[in-house]
């Protein structure tokens, strides 16, 4: 037993030493990596899978792209991850991608052309993937829109030039006529300033090519077969294709009035918002899906870690066209509409801020709203009980599924008394045992 224990300690020590040595690897290596454009439930995440990771994680029944590429990989100890030097070496590997399940090849993929199309512009982050002919169509649409914009921009610059010239002429004319002694209104038409064209409100990435993986949930393997029929060394990877555990609910991002930079999430329907006393809460509802934490983290970045036993909610899209109801049981206390708010810094030594409704005055001053949200005010006079928030469609009044959350106002002042409740079994025990003793004595 003792020997076994010593062996265990030695093995564990070796494990630690080897781990420490493993961290000191050669800094630069030429490697075959997979560049990934993976659907993450809402849009597409870009990452790469180095040789150190043997598994690629993807969401089921959605297009994701894997592109085998030869690049320079180096270990960056500060972030404890491998980095790719695509700017130094970015050699695309050609061949066919074989997808295997249980050791059998179930499909062979050719590279396909794709684009990422952002209907609400690049910064909206919401993208749609188009393939082949559709990719060409949408990319052409974007290019035409950009060309049209450039044409309008050129026209705008020319118009601006003409405008400046006209404005100079206007001032010259005014000066000349005033100097000539003319009084009263001069009736000279004021030149109109041209307006710049609006930029293209959508975006498309340049067409690229890669292997499109769109698989049902399960465990697979992939490998790259060269044109000469051999397998490209280091191209074998496991692929875990997964789906959400729960979907179709509404999650909330909550901005507490006293700390607007530190938001809270109330995603799971079982989660309760505990509060005491006065409060101002700003709710932002999102459609959401629940994924395995390890799988999802690895999907976004294969070098990320996660816990296979845990699940996480992922906000997919904001819930639009809804009102937020705050109520107690069936009684509606507040029917809240989405409104813009502005965070105003309080001047002076106090270092604070105030969240105020964004109005026309702020707009005229050139300020933009800090955030948009549904504001719920909890009055200090509210009875300490349970309240509910939920969202309903503005058009039909139908409640959004699984959008109800409880706001529980706690009676914090009674907290010390809960120790008294712990004495209940002692009291019962004393009564029971004394009763028994007296019964025996009788």
């Amino acid at each position: 037993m003792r020997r076994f224990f010593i062996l265990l300690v030695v093995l564990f020590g070796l494990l630690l030493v080897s781990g420490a040595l493993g961290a000191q690897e050669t800094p630069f290596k030429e490697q075959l990596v997979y560049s990934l454009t993976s659907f993450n439930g809402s849009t597409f995440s870009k990452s790469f899978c180095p040789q150190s990771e043997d598994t690629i994680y993807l969401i089921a029944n959605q297009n994701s792209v894997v592109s085998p590429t030869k690049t320079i990989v180096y270990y960056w100890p500060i972030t404890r991850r491998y980095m790719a030097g695509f700017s130094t070496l970015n050699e695309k590997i050609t061949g066919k991608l074989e997808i295997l399940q249980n050791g059998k090849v179930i499909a062979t993929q050719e590279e396909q052309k794709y684009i990422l199309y952002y209907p609400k512009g690049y910064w909206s982050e919401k993208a749609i993937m188009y393939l082949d002919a559709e990719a060409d169509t949408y990319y052409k649409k974007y290019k035409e829109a950009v060309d049209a914009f450039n044409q309008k921009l050129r026209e705008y610059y020319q118009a601006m030039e003409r405008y400046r010239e006209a404005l100079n002429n206007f001032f010259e004319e005014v000066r000349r006529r005033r100097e000539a002694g003319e009084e009263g209104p001069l009736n000279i038409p004021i030149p109109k300033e041209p307006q710049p064209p609006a930029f293209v409100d959508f975006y498309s990435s340049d067409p690229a090519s890669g292997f499109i993986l769109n698989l049902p949930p399960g465990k697979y393997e992939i490998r790259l077969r060269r044109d000469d029929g051999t397998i490209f060394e280091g191209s074998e990877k496991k692929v875990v294709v997964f789906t959400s555990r729960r979907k179709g609910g509404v999650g909330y991002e909550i901005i507490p009035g006293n700390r607007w930079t530190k938001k809270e999430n109330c995603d799971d329907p079982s989660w309760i918002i505990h509060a005491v006393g006065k409060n101002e809460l700003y709710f932002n509802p999102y459609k959401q899906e629940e994924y395995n934490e390890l799988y999802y983290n690895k999907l976004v970045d294969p070098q990320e870690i996660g816990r296979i036993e845990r699940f996480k909610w992922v906000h997919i899209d904001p819930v639009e066209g809804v009102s937020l109801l705050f109520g107690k049981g069936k009684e509606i206390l507040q029917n809240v509409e989405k409104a813009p708010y502005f965070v105003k810094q309080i001047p002076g030594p106090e270092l604070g801020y105030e969240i105020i409704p964004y109005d026309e005055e702020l707009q005229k001053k050139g300020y933009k709203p800090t955030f948009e949200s549904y504001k719920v005010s909890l009055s200090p006079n509210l009875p300490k009980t349970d309240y509910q928030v939920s969202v309903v469609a503005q058009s039909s009044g139908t409640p959004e599924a699984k959008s109800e959350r409880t706001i529980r106002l706690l009676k914090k002042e009674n907290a010390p008394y809960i120790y008294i409740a712990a004495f209940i079994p002692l009291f019962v025990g004393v009564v029971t045992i004394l009763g028994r003793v007296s019964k025996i004595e009788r």
Partner: protein
Amino acid sequence: MRRSRVLSTLFKRDFLYTLYSFGYYGALFASFLVSSFILKNFLDATREEDILVSAFPLNYPLYLTLIIISLYLVIVSAISISREREQGTLEVLFYGPVTPSSFLWSKYLKDLSLGILALGFTALYFYVVSVLTNLGFTMGLVRALFMGVFLISCVVSFGLFISSLTGRIRSSIITLIAILGAFLAIQFVYNMLLGIEKESLSPSLLYLRQATAYVFRAINWVSPFAYLSRGLDSVVLENWTLYATHMLYCVVYSLIFVFLSIYAMGKKGVKA
């Protein structure tokens, strides 16, 4: 018929013995005191003009209460089995109509009944706490309490199995505490390390996390406390299929360990 009468007599004897001992109420008091401490801290953490988002805040105290109560019941049973072995009572009993099966079933049913009674106390305690603080005596808590019956059953059957393998009181208690303590420690360390971000962990802690993950996976279906966590998770998820499945798992687990205990006692005999 005679067998059921034997079982009922043994059950009644043990049940009343524990019920009229102060230890049972002391264990309940200790577990409620720990729960009160946790809940007080939770209430203190919820400040004015701020919020605290949490799932059922009463679930963690319930988890601890269930562990303390079931550990107490298991240890008391282990002591009683070993004492009866050491003092020769078991030998005398087995010359009569008592069999290992009726003896161990009576112990199991006694512990389970005391566990159910303890859950009644727990329900009362949480009800009083929720009236005082509005922490919420919800349907979720009722379901968790109901699940608690099955989880106590798992711990009790596992404890009986260990007790049936050991002879003397001391070795019985040490083995029980060591095994159950190890299960709890592994679960606790694993969950604690899981809660820490990767960037905050030193390489040795990262390896430790990986190692505990493997160990945790290995004991996942043996440790009764793992059933407890999974059972409470199914309550939070409000997944009734999972809830029923966990109950079924607990029943199967309990039956396996009770039968293994009977087998082990039959093999080992009645002498210490």
